[in-house]
């Protein structure tokens, strides 16, 4: 983990309301694992005050890192104004990411922006030569919001798609595709997306007795484990830090509500 200035290489619209930010950050590229995140200082003023957490979306070579972000508010709006050549203060890599197990087939389940960290995991899997033994289920509200599908296919993954309005792939939620897959494959599941989706994925995994890792979200003030603001409740009653003990948790440990 370190604090440093990255150089913006590119900041481009990837889908409506979603940007891909490419930065040159050798220290980060060298140290990052899938599911880890970084804290970005946005702007130079005191408002917004806090850094914003973003997953490490992809690593290219030894120097370049991508972040995929959706514009939702004050900070992400400012982020869209960044131009190539500008400096960006980052702290990372942070948190405990996915622990990928090569010996079992993998199933990646992404909802909406949940593809952000899972894409990096797919990169690692493909690099290990087992992309074709790996499936990805990707859900979005509609066709235009589907992200990374072609890239994942190009990496050799078997990709299936759902949209809520039926404009691409199967109509419905991503979890609708899940039952068949888990019964046939008995994979290890890696998932990121909205809380209700993660809850559904976790329930199904537990029903079939499958290993399942989920990436949780929380408001983060420090991202370093110091403020104790980002906690999530575990089944044993503990409130643990999403930024430090997570953001990726064993689905069996989370107190789903």
């Amino acid at each position, binding site marked *: 983990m370190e604090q440093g200035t990255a150089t913006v290489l590119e900041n481009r619209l990837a889908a409506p309301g979603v940007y891909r930010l490419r930065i040159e950050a050798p220290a980060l590229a060298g140290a990052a694992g899938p599911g880890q995140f970084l804290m970005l200082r946005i702007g130079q003023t005191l408002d917004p005050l806090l850094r914003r957490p973003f997953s490490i979306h992809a690593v290219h070579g030894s120097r370049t890192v991508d972040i995929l972000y959706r514009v939702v508010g004050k900070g992400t709006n400012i982020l869209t104004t960044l131009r190539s050549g500008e400096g960006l203060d980052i702290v990372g890599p942070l948190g405990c990411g996915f622990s990928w197990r090569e010996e079992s087939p993998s199933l990646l389940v992404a909802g909406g922006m949940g593809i952000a960290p899972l894409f990096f995991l797919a990169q690692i899997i493909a690099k290990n030569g087992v992309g074709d033994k790996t499936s990805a289920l990707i859900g979005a509200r509609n066709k235009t919001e589907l992200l990374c599908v072609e890239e994942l296919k190009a990496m050799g993954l078997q990709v299936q798609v759902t949209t809520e309005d039926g404009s691409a792939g199967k109509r419905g939620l991503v979890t609708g595709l899940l039952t068949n897959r888990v019964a046939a494959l008995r994979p290890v599941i890696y998932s990121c997306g909205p809380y209700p989706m993660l809850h559904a994925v976790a329930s199904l995994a537990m029903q079939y007795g499958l290993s399942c890792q989920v990436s949780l979200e929380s408001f983060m003030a420090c991202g370093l484990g110091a403020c*104790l603001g980002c906690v999530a409740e575990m089944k044993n009653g503990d409130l643990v830090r999403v930024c430090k003990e997570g953001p990726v948790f064993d689905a069996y440990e989370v107190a789903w509500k």
Partner: protein
Amino acid sequence: MKKTNPDLSVRIGLLRLQNPVLTASGTFGYGQEYAGLVDLNRLGGIIVKGLSLNPRPGNMPPRTVETPCGLLNAIGLQNVGVENFIADKLPFLRKLSVPVIVNILGQDIKEYRKLAERLSNVEGIAALEVNISCPNVKKGGVVFGTDYKAAARVTRAVRAAVRLPIIIKLSPNVTDIVSIARAVEEAGADAVSLINTLTGMAIDVEARRPKLHNVTGGLSGPAIKPVALRMVWQVAGAVNIPVIGCGGIMTAADALEFLLAGASAVQVGTANFVNPRATMEIISGIEEYLARHDLKDIKSLVGSLIL
């Protein structure tokens, strides 16, 4: 002509700090969280997360919300408890060469006393900071900080239990902070630190719900700096013990404002989240300011505000 480096060291009663920059309780964990980002041995001192006698789980999330130039938190003093602190956290801190100040919080006077007694002969603790000002817990904390008689009682109980320097951390959520500062001075405090967070609130208008699970929280960050500065100035003019300033300090210029207003040292809180290197930059900035103004030490700066 050879110029000597300015002397940044300060004294808080019997406590000697190599520079006036401390980390504020609750914003720096137990030090280790920042080890990779900050040269911990360059700090004036580390004030650790508030400890209670027994571990506390804290409040349910959401516990933090950002507000313009500020942060609202309702952590609820989640901490590992005094025994786990001594066993698991202190060994790392002992290896550092800077003073470690332990922030304590009790539900009643007996608990403050017990905590102080337990910590009194533990190696590696330089001072106690007594939190009588946390707004996020039902019992204890702020109850003692808003009544000058209760504040004095807590101070006397801790004073009687330890020989360590004791710093009483005051709450800004009062009408007359000066009377409380005077009461704890009289009761034997070696120093006062101020301010803790200001009670605040934020509402999600779409959901028509409070943004914090706890409904209200403590406001920190640049938004509270003018209030903190005013209180430090008032208190420094009214007591004879050192005042430690805290509230919204982000830069060396902010820290210098507090020193000019009469603070002998400062604490950096929320800034650690925004810029983990904030304390390092503030120390360098103060040093640079002293050199630029031909001041040989911090003493010549403290309280030198021209009215």
